């Protein structure tokens, strides 16, 4: 009798668990387009705007991976009715029951310290030039559904420019024309763009940009001018006309 009761309880628990798990595996929408725009201030604070084209929307919760660990000041810009809540590296969007099948959702939030400082700690040996900052946005699709078109635009802080775009992932797929990421002027501000056509579950996209101060040192100018003058003086015999042979002394 006790054994039978145990098996019934186990079956009921399994059904209850299935009821909980199955809806959470099926997303309430698929992300057809993921467009992130990040404006970074000089203090490293990033203001992020996400424009998401959601398709096959059903009422419920959609989890959106954001590529940052923590957000502040999260708000939904549009449409009215959708609500958002931060959940670590995810945003939990709640879609109202009357939402259309396809909807464009715009969300904004802030991220502290989006720039990596490269200044050495006291006593540490510097490996990078002073004033250099690293920008390494990294995104992973941790959700079951694939993301269609992914575009990540980041605008650099005032006073900094890209020295080099060192790396961009994923690597170009067969038949895909590059580059994966490139430097670009975005809304009149220097920045970088990362494009990926499809990001499946568990796939990542990232780039690595080195930022340096906009102003260049005058060292090269001084050294170059000094060298050029020294050469013109030291090597003037190269173009001196050959001296006429001295007349024979009588």
């Amino acid at each position, binding site marked *: 009798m006790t054994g039978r009761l145990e098996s019934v309880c186990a079956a009921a628990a399994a059904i209850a668990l299935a009821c909980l798990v199955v809806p959470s595996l099926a997303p309430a929408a698929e992300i057809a387009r993921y467009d992130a725009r990040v404006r970074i201030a000089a203090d490293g604070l990033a203001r992020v705007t996400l424009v998401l084209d959601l398709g096959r929307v059903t009422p419920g919760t959609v989890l959106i991976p954001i590529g940052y660990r923590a957000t502040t000041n999260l708000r939904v810009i549009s449409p009215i009715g959708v609500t958002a809540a931060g959940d670590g590296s995810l945003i939990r969007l709640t879609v109202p029951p009357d939402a259309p099948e396809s909807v464009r959702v715009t969300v904004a939030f802030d991220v502290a310290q989006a720039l990596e400082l490269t200044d050495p700690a006291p006593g540490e040996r510097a490996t990078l*030039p002073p004033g250099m900052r690293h920008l390494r946005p990294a995104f992973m699709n941790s959700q079951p559904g694939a993301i269609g078109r992914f575009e990540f635009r980041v605008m650099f802080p005032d006073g900094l*420019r*890209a*020295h*080099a*775009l060192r790396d961009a992932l994923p690597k170009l797929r067969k*038949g895909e*024309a*590059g*580059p994966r990421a*490139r*430097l*670009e*002027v975005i809304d009149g501000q*220097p920045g970088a763009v990362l494009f990926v056509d499809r990001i499946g579950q568990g796939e990542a996209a990232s780039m690595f940009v*080195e930022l*340096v101060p*906009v102003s*260049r040192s005058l060292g*090269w*100018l001084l050294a*170059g*001018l000094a*060298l*050029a003058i020294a*050469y*013109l003086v030291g*090597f*003037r015999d*190269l*173009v001196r006309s050959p001296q006429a042979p001295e007349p024979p002394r009588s």
Partner: protein
Amino acid sequence: MASSVATIAGEARLHALLDMEKMTLSSKPRPAQSATERWMRYLGFPAGIAAFLIIYYLPGGGSLGGAAQAGAACFALALIWWVTEPFPTYVTSLALMFLLLVTRSSGPKAILDVLGMDVIWLNLLAFILGGMLVKTRLARRMALWLVLRFGHTAGWALLAFLLLQLALAPLIPATAARTVMTLPLILVVAAIYGSTEDTPNAFGRNLMLLNLVGISVLSSVSMTGSSANLIAVGFIQTMGDHRVYYLDWALASAPVAITASLLMWAIGQRAIFRIPAAERTPRLTGGLDMIREKYREMGPFTAGEKKAIAIFGVVLFLWMSDIFHLRWFGVEITPPFAALIGAVIVLFPRWGVLQWADADIPWHLLIFSAGAYAGGLALDDTGAAEWGVRMLFGNLALQGLPFGVVYTIIVSVMMYSHLLTTSKTVRTMIMIPIVITLSKALGWDPVSLALPAAFCIDWVVGLPISGKPNVILFSTNQYSVLDNFKYGMVTCTIGVVLLVVSAATWFHWLGLTPAFWAVAP
């Protein structure tokens, strides 16, 4: 009296060259030949620095990274120094490598790794294999035969080399391998016509640079002529939805490449480096009779020559059979490794034909090549080359222009863009997708612009750093960077003219291009 002493000394040098047991390429700086060259050397140094400073301090930001801007500044400085030669080219290369590091255009590993690139290895091994051909006197025998058979005059000797390169092009796709193979022959024939490293003459310049044209341009005769051609065909298929067949390519490109090479044969010796009447026949005392006598003196093939033929045959076989390597060996033996196994046999104790000391490796030339490649790679890796192309196409308002105008611009950009890169593959990967995208945006069939653009891939003849054959041939020290630039620019301009004329006629008849003055719907 003085002139006869000079003539005797010159002839003694020629005979010594024909009897040489090793190729020696000295690292002595080439003396300035004229007052203009002296002024170029004097002003070249500050001009290079000025170019560096202007590019380095241009307002940056936007879509051009700081590393790309600094890399372009370093490359411009080096280019001016290579052309004007204020000091030897290898010193410029070393200076460039240092500048790339301190401007953070490239990292130390990327800069130093170029000395291990396949082109450097192939260059090094070329001198070992070339040394074998010279030491065993096989190169001398082949050169004397070639001159006796075809070289009664300079013109025929030059044409014989062009035909040789045309015959080799479909057999050996690796251009560097073709260069390595023919270099000893080129050197000895140049010597027979009086052109050596110490006394370069117009025949030597024509011979070296015509071979460069033959090796590079004739690679565009077929789509398997280089791997970059195949990459372009792949892009046209995947991005342009058009399959290009072997015959499509050959029918369109071969007439252009062959005509351009023949035109350079004719123009080079008459207009670019005019060969004086005195240099049009072999410069050995006794002329052809002397050469016949020398050839007869050589007698039958020696054991060393037979060994050299066998070793070279093995290397040649490996170069030609690369498509079967995976099936036979489970790995592809690339051209440097085929040459490497040849070098192992050449240097093998007792069985080989050469000792290490006999193979005079010109390290100064390898350093020059390494620096040049480091500079070119920096342009590619930092995105400077790609930025230049995008800016150029982005600033051209091509919408609504007739097909012929758009075509001419695209072909010209593609043809001359090789001056900014050292890799055909990288250039193809940057340019062809842009051309395909642009064609679609303008409303033209992508193949009508992308395929003719792909025909320009192999025309990398403008500078000694533009390709592997360029580096190897420049190592003969018989022409300057300026000579190369002059000859290369004439070749490329002829190429552009021929491609434009072809677009209006031959390509249109083949169905490749629309009417020349057609406007996009």
